[in-house]
């Protein structure tokens, strides 16, 4: 595709349920990032994948959060046992690599009730 795509665009879930958010990066981009944006915390880095290197997980807020990137392309962010404070817009981005601009997807708005 022409840009980064994310699905679903909106997700409402009950507290305690698990959710999976998907990101399709731009074809050929080796780097993939997850961020989240919430009213209280602004835009926060979560996790970064670069090629076959071990991901940088330093931004994940708790062990309930995990992410995978299969085949160097599609990525899934999983949140287990969701809490109300997980409500946010989750943004995915990809780039050609270090020190290149990042291209963002439209985001997934997660609401935990």
């Amino acid at each position, binding site marked *: 595709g022409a840009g980064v795509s994310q699905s679903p665009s909106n997700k409402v879930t009950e507290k305690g349920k698990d959710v999976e958010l998907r990101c399709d990066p731009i074809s050929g981009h080796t780097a993939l990032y997850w961020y989240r*944006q919430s009213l209280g915390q602004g835009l926060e880095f979560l996790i970064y994948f670069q090629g076959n290197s071990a991901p940088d997980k330093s931004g994940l807020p708790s062990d309930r959060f995990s992410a995978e990137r299969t085949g160097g392309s599609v990525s899934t962010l999983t949140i287990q046992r969701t809490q109300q404070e997980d409500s946010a817009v989750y943004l995915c981005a990809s780039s050609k690599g*270090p*020190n290149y601009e*990042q291209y963002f997807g439209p985001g997934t708005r997660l609401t935990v009730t």
Partner: protein
Amino acid sequence: SQQGEEDPQALSIQEGENATMNCSYKTSINNLQWYRQNSGRGLVHLILIRSNEREKHSGRLRVTLDTSKKSSSLLITASRAADTASYFCATVKNTDKLIFGTGTRLQVFP
């Protein structure tokens, strides 16, 4: 966590005027990037300036970087109503992750 502060938090101007937004950050960087966000969703990359550069232009955008003061500014000249958005600076240090500032909400009135 956010590294940077942006100032002002909100800015309202008339079409045709120039808009200046400032960004300050805390640590050394490899590069600094500016992004625009409409309606609280997708971010659009505007411009990237590397730590060894002092000024860059792209169309109506002008970005400056002062690494000694750990600050950057974004100037939008001859603003248009379509420039209404939130603008974020983001820094890149050793790894490639973006550390965002707090953002400036720009309103351009026709």
